């Protein structure tokens, strides 16, 4: 990864405070991050440490209460609907809970159709669209013909997350934020889904922000790991630095919380 490259995305002093007065929670307490094109970074932290909040600020879904975000070297401006649309062509996400991420009143085709329209393919002949959707579905091992006229909630959790990957396949964004996309999935589908995502990354060259509390995953896939504790990045660096030689006690605890995986990759690194 070339180092001198200008960061694709940069956040400086990013802060989010929820609520007022007594009920105030500092979900993200001023974090800096730099993301270079093509990089895969991972944010690891325990539940409630502010990972999702951070991701949603980067996505522009919630407004930060402090700090700046730079996209492609410029201060991000998403003040109008048009600008947001432009931004979201570049940055997309897959959410934690597939069961709540779909509109239960919309059929699967409409989810994929939206992506084609967003890429400017709204006026393509229907046949063309079906071809694109079929291709996207087959990439994640789903049969589009079987899915038309189905609702997302009629799929399994794993299938729903795969459909989300198909969505990204069609959208072809520069940056993808994958927020604990396997935490609600059984262990078997987990590996498949991660494989598919990494394959997609290689195919379209996305920059990926993984969010997880799975230290093993972080070690395997990422170029850089950020450890998040109570809204702050307490430690960051390459997986080797952070996970094999953790300095912070919090990081050590995170690692010891998943002893099995630790042993596994400890062996594999020998």
């Amino acid at each position, binding site marked *: 990864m070339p180092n001198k490259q200008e960061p694709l995305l940069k956040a400086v002093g990013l802060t989010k405070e929820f609520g007022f007065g007594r009920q105030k929670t500092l979900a993200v307490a001023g974090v800096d991050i730099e993301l270079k094109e093509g990089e895969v970074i991972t944010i690891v932290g325990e539940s409630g440490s502010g990972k999702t909040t951070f991701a949603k600020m980067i996505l522009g879904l*919630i407004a930060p209460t402090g700090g700046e975000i730079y996209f492609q070297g410029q201060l991000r401006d998403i003040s109008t609907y048009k600008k947001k649309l432009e931004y979201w062509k570049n940055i997309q996400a897959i959410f934690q809970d597939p069961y709540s991420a779909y*509109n239960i009143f*919309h059929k699967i085709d409409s989810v994929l159709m939206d992506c084609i329209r967003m890429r400017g393919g709204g006026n393509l002949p229907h046949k063309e669209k079906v071809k694109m959707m079929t291709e996207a579905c087959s990439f994640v091992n789903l049969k589009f013909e079987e899915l038309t006229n189905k609702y997302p909630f009629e799929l399994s959790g794993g299938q729903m997350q795969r459909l989300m990957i198909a969505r990204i396949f069609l959208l072809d964004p520069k940056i993808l934020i994958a927020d604990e996309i396997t935490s609600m999935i059984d262990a078997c589908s987990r590996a498949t889904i991660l494989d598919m995502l990494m394959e997609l990354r290689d195919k379209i060259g996305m920059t990926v922000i993984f969010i997880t509390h799975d230290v093993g995953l972080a070690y395997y896939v990422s170029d850089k790991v950020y450890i998040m504790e109570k809204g702050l990045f307490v430690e960051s660096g390459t997986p080797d630095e952070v996970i094999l030689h953790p300095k912070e006690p919090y990081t050590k605890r995170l690692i010891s919380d998943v002893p099995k995986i630790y042993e596994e990759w400890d062996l594999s690194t020998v």
Partner: protein
Amino acid sequence: MKHTIREIFHSPKFLVGFSIFMFILLVVIFYPLFVTAEPLEIIGKGTFFEPGIYVNVYDGVNSKQYTLNLDDAAEKRIASKLGDQERLDMQEWLLSFGIPEEEIDIYDTEKLIELWENNYDRSIRFPGMTSARQKYFGRLNTSLAGLLSTEGIVLAAENQETGELESTGIIEQTNYLNVGQVANVRVLPLGTDNFGRDMLTELVSATGTSLKIGFIAGSIATMIGLTLGLLAGYIGGWVDDIIMFFTNLFTVIPSIVLLILISYSIGQEQRGAVTVAVVIGFTSWVWTTRAVRAQVISLRHRDHVNLSKLSGHSVGHIIVHDILPYIASYVVMAFILQISSGILAEAGLSILGLGPKTTDVPTLGLMMNWAMIYSAHIMGKWWAYFPVIVVIALVSFSMNLMNTGLDQVFNPALRE
């Protein structure tokens, strides 16, 4: 969707409420097809005719007569003229006249009448007796005349040439007529009201008008409440602040006070049923706004909304596709409640004399108002107000029942 509808109709509460409501609705729709009379037509000369079958006497006399020898006919005839109350009244008069109490046996009909006939004098007015009371005894006396006789009634007509009365026939005590053969029979199942109008026809028409008022008021309130709630909840910020300011303002002023003030200032003549409905609608959107806003706030940070944003949808699209369907069940429920509370609000206003103008159409509230003004409740004319109360209660009850049914179906689904 289909599944939900099936589930709704499997909910016993909803079904009961729905059936009652549909029954009322069907009666309102089909009754006027069979009874085409004007609901406000005054047919009775006098107030508060009792419910019953009214047979035209003239036609009755002139219709075919049958002889039936029934044993208990005489007994019944006496009983109907001489009830317990009449007997006690006679006793009262006789006592005042000075007959010793031992001599009066009010259960010996023959003796009682004899005693009465021997002593009663129309002109006597005891000290402390009102003239109305004196007249009452006069009427009682007339109705007793010939009670024990077995003679028939002679019909007489004036001879056109001589000008003399000539007997044209006799109605025996054993004579009967077949109601079906009498040309003019009017059934007044609920009697007449204070103006002499057929209560049932009026009640059906009033129910229709009240439902219409409820529907208009409910639609307006729901539309306003939904729009404001969606805007406040989804857009938030200063839009929310402004909307909530007005909502709170309307919350602290009870809507009935507003209603009274507005209705009063509009004036009796301008207040048609629709105007009243609109006024009710414009003063009762508050809690729909609050409920919708709360729902929307909990929805707007859901991931399916986020996904929709990320898919490039506009605010309008998101509200229509990602928010509205999720709160649709709540809105339907709010709508039903608004209809029923609109009907109640009209009734309340009309009882206070601030309802629609009284010359146009009857409403349930107006009927209550009339019954009250003419003291139907004091005079025991139950048919003038009780059926109205029953209809109001049934409409309100059926709607609330439907609502509870819907609640049971929708809520677990939303919480899942």
